[in-house]
């Protein structure tokens, strides 16, 4: 369980996050949405140990800023918004960076399976720097997956923290990756994903947190959060929410002001 109580965070002397209170349960997918600069990445960084924070935040009962990186790495993996690799590693080598000592035995199988999951079967020997942007993004997704491959272990549920996992992907691979995260949650793991695509969020998330100016404006089930008024207020553009597909709300951005 992820619990966040009145969290604040500062960057370069500016307060970026204020009064963030939220929780997420294992077995669910939580989407964090909001306009550019609203603090989504900053929140994710605070929750993954990159950033000191005020207030309290814990994952599976471990206070986030007081737990050794190795211990945290065993229960959660993190996909950054962007990754630049310093050296020409192969795809398989990058995926294997995610392996912790305990699963090293079937390293090859796991690597191959993770790559197949993200639609990159057979890409193992390629130099990652020769892959396209979306392909590279999926390699890192595979790396994150092998780090916490089993959604539940004896030590409890494990977590995926993903910053815009589908931003660089085409529509087919967006669905591939969203399905992976969905089934991770359905198998008992927890997923917290920063998203820009509100329709995918509505389709796949159990809960949505809508951020604006470093605070959470609204959180709850997709249909509760994604309303015309909430969206017009946060994104500053008219959006009409339809309930046409039965999975949930369906958003149509409007070309003209309402």
């Amino acid at each position, binding site marked *: 369980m992820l619990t966040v109580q009145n969290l604040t965070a500062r960057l370069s002397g500016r307060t970026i996050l204020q009064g963030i209170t939220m929780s997420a349960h294992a077995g669910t997918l939580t989407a964090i949405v909001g306009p550019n600069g609203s603090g989504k990445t900053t929140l994710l*960084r605070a929750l*993954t*140990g*990159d950033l000191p924070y005020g207030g309290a935040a814990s994952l599976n009962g471990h206070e986030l800023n007081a737990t*050794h*990186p*190795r*211990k*945290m*790495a*065993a229960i959660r*993996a*993190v996909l*950054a918004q962007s*990754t*630049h*690799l*310093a*050296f*020409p*590693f*192969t*795809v*398989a*080598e990058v995926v294997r*960076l*995610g392996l*912790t000592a305990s699963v*090293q035995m079937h*390293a*090859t199988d796991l*690597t191959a399976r993770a790559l197949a999951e993200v639609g990159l079967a057979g890409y*193992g*020997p390629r130099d990652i*720097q020769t892959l396209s942007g979306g392909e590279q993004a999926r390699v890192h997704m595979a790396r994150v997956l092998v*780090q916490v491959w089993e959604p539940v272990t004896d030590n409890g549920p494990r977590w995926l923290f993903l910053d815009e996992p589908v931003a660089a992907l085409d529509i087919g691979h967006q669905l591939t990756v969203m399905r992976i995260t969905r089934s991770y949650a359905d198998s008992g793991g927890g997923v917290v994903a920063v998203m820009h695509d509100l329709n995918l969020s509505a389709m796949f998330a159990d809960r949505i947190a809508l951020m604006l100016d470093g605070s959470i404006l609204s959180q709850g089930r997709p249909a509760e959060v994604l309303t015309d008024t909430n969206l017009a207020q946060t994104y500053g553009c008219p959006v009409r929410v339809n309930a046409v597909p039965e999975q949930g709300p369906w958003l149509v951005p409007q070309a003209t002001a309402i």
Partner: protein
Amino acid sequence: MVALPWHKTSPQEDDRSVGAAQTTRTLLGLLVVVSILSLGTGAAGLSVFDAARDLVSGEGLSVRDRVILMDIRLPRLAMGLMIGAALALSGALMQGLFRNPLADPGIVGVGAGAGLGAVLAIVLAGLLPTGLAVLIGAHLVPVAAFLGGWASTLLLYRVATRGGQTSVATMLLAGIALGALAGALTGMLVYMADDRQLRDLTFWNMGSLAGASWSKLAASLPLILPVLLLSPLLARGLNALALGEAQAAHLGIHVETVKRLAILGVAAAAGAAVAVAGGIGFVGIVVPHLLRLATGPDHRYLLPNAALLGASLLVGADMVARVIVSPAELPIGIVTATMGAPVFLWILLKRRGLGGL
């Protein structure tokens, strides 16, 4: 087949560990060959094969041969191996730390900083109380070089990295400034030195293995040996660091520890090498670069293989230095720079195609 610790994983085509292990064996072979050749090379005509035959036939070595072999060629070989390994390893460690294939202690001023430490030790040793000077003895110069190298690596890292990303331009420019500063201070010290110290300085500054002796070896071994033995422990951390500091931490790496140890390792290896052999450039950049081309950037193989190739390369360069203007000798730094500087330029040229620095 030698069972090395990273041979455990099974062979697989997308895994370069098999090739890396093969490379390790080849490099071990190369090391042996180069070492034998080096023992047989020198101004005095003594062939290793004659010596070996004398030994085997039970006649034993003549006194002259024994002196040449044991007191001149063997220590020179041992020091060449040690310093070559140290230079290549310090380069590989530094490149991993800075996440940049162009980082090299010699190029970015760490060598100059270590040199300043060494010169400081040579010049100021006279000021020490005699008892203390005797006590520290030969260790003073290597330790001072280590401290100089450590301070400059630390300073460089502070200046050139922001939030875990290194700017190449800043790193190289800061390296130039650091090198110039260390050079100026060294110049001042040289000006202050007396005749005997000047002799020591000139000898040290030539960048040569000519002054090799068992005692010099003993003085710097305590610095280099721990780096050789312990650097493999940093391999996983440096691999993860290639993703950036934050992401390395997400993978469970204690980033600060890895960085501190890598900086210490760079300083110890580069410092010890500089202290006993002066400025020998480019080994630290050429060796890791060639190995990355051959077996990839995985530090689990890169670090040990770099030590092996660096050792062979330096002993080879030393042979060239001894033979090419025989019976005189070129400073070995000239040989390594002639081989290495073009490689450095070549890397720059290739990186330009990859979207510049």
